[in-house]
């Protein structure tokens, strides 16, 4: 049933008994054309675009837990395309543009809220870096403008913009098209649309092995049984190395816990997304439509597959947030958690073929995979369908680790993913 105000009204009178399942609970078949391992945003979007853009529908998305339960459901929901390198900017702006039409395309309100995203400068050096980024963005065809401290204050009155602040504010780089979206809705919206196009979504279906004959993928082994498939696509984020190990290759990745937290809900107090560079506080914050402040900052800097929080980073993040917003000190942290992010050396993703024919991988999104979901899905689908990289994702290859042609945003612009 189409989602619309009219149907909502009708169902209101009918006690909402007519709504069908948002996506089918499919039973695992023994044979698919394409198996996608990982039912997060990237896996679901990939399935959707394979069906929608490439006319393929004998597809299964296998999720070891519940869909959207990895980093898709654990991030701070920021979307933006304020990138330095043309390769990054082209890809992430493509993704942002897909986001801009996504609610209607999927007929699922993902609550994209382009309330602007500003990166703060805390010193004259930061400001010079931001000017460098601003010009790069403009050359890359992405909207960008520099705000003065007064303009920053006008957009975010709770910020301490005085020069007395430990990390004073010299200005900010604003991308008005940046913002937030409802993260779970992105997973559910893609799941619903993919399912409607015939994709099987199978939850609680952990992949435990791969069938490979003479260097070619033949299928996967799961907790629910074996599945034949000529093409298998990995979209498992922090667990990519675990899957790669089953196939006996390693990835240029390390898995870390990235924490985030929300405050208790408040009446509107912060209208834009604000990020402070790592050389300052490293904190990023926005306020959700529910009123919670959504806050993140640095990684826990040791390898981890434990999806749980740890106190030191939370304390440091709280201190950073209070330093930026002295009036937030009395607000209370409601809930904190962690996701396992797969970090490459240059924090740029990998969308590529693997040493095994028919096995493809989408990984390395690090701390920035959410904003890339539509773009990652669309370009990964292209790679799987054509066995050739999408032009926008071609730079995101394994080869760069051999040649040294890294796309390192943090190194160039001080703003990581």
């Amino acid at each position, binding site marked *: 049933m189409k989602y619309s105000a009219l149907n909502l009204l009708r169902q209101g009178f009918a006690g909402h008994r007519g709504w069908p399942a948002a996506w089918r609970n499919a039973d695992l078949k023994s044979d698919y054309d394409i198996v996608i391992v990982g039912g997060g945003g990237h896996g679901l979007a990939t399935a959707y675009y394979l069906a929608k853009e490439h006319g393929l529908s004998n597809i299964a998305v296998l999720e070891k837990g519940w869909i959207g339960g990895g980093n898709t459901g654990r991030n701070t929901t920021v979307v933006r395309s304020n990138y330095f390198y043309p390769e990054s900017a082209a890809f992430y702006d493509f993704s942002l543009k897909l986001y801009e039409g996504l609610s209607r395309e999927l007929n699922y309100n993902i609550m994209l809220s382009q309330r602007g995203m500003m990166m703060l400068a805390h010193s004259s050096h930061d400001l010079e870096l931001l000017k460098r980024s601003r010009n790069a963005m403009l050359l890359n065809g992405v909207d960008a403008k520099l705000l003065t401290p007064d303009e920053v204050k006008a957009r975010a009155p709770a910020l301490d913009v005085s020069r007395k602040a430990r990390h004073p504010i010299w200005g900010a780089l604003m991308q008005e098209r940046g913002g937030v979206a409802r993260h779970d809705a992105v997973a559910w919206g893609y799941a619903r649309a993919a399912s409607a196009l015939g994709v099987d979504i199978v939850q609680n279906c952990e992949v435990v092995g791969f069938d490979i004959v003479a260097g070619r993928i033949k299928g996967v082994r799961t907790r629910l049984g074996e599945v034949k498939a000529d093409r298998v696509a990995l979209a498992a984020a922090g667990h990519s190395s675990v899957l790669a190990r089953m196939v006996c290759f390693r990835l240029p990745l390390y898995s870390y816990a990235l924490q985030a937290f929300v405050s208790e809900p408040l009446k509107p107090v912060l209208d834009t997304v604000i990020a402070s560079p790592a050389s300052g506080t490293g904190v990023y914050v926005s306020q959700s439509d529910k009123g919670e402040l959504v806050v993140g900052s640095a990684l826990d800097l*040791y390898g981890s597959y434990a999806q749980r929080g740890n106190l030191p980073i939370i304390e440091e993040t709280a201190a950073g947030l209070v330093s930026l917003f002295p009036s937030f000190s009395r607000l209370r942290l409601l809930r904190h958690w962690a996701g396992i992010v797969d970090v490459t050396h240059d924090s740029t993703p990998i969308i590529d073929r693997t040493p095994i024919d028919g096995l493809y991988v989408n990984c390395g999104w690090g701390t920035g995979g959410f904003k890339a979901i539509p773009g990652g899905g669309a370009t990964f689908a292209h790679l799987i369908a054509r066995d050739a990289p999408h032009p926008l994702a071609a730079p995101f290859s394994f080869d760069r*680790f*051999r040649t040294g042609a890294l796309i390192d945003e943090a190194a160039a612009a001080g703003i990581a993913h």
Partner: protein
Amino acid sequence: MLSIVCPFCGPRDETEFRCGGESHIARPGPPDAVTDEAWADYLFYRDNTKGVQFERWVHAYGCGLWFNVARNSVTHEILAVYEMTDPKPHGLVE
């Protein structure tokens, strides 16, 4: 907040330490004899094990010494602490 037993100072909170990533990675050389692939493998490719990881840590805000830790990356349980030049402990290697 891990409690890490520095082999030189005793148990301390993780905030006194810094993790240097996977240990026991041999540095290939001399430069002319190393292929691009081997160099990339050395620089970037990691086991990234879900389970027992062997990693090096430094007691950065303590004695300043480096040492090896065998740690479970899921439970964060520390299974062994051993000196920088020691091999991986028997019984922990798969």
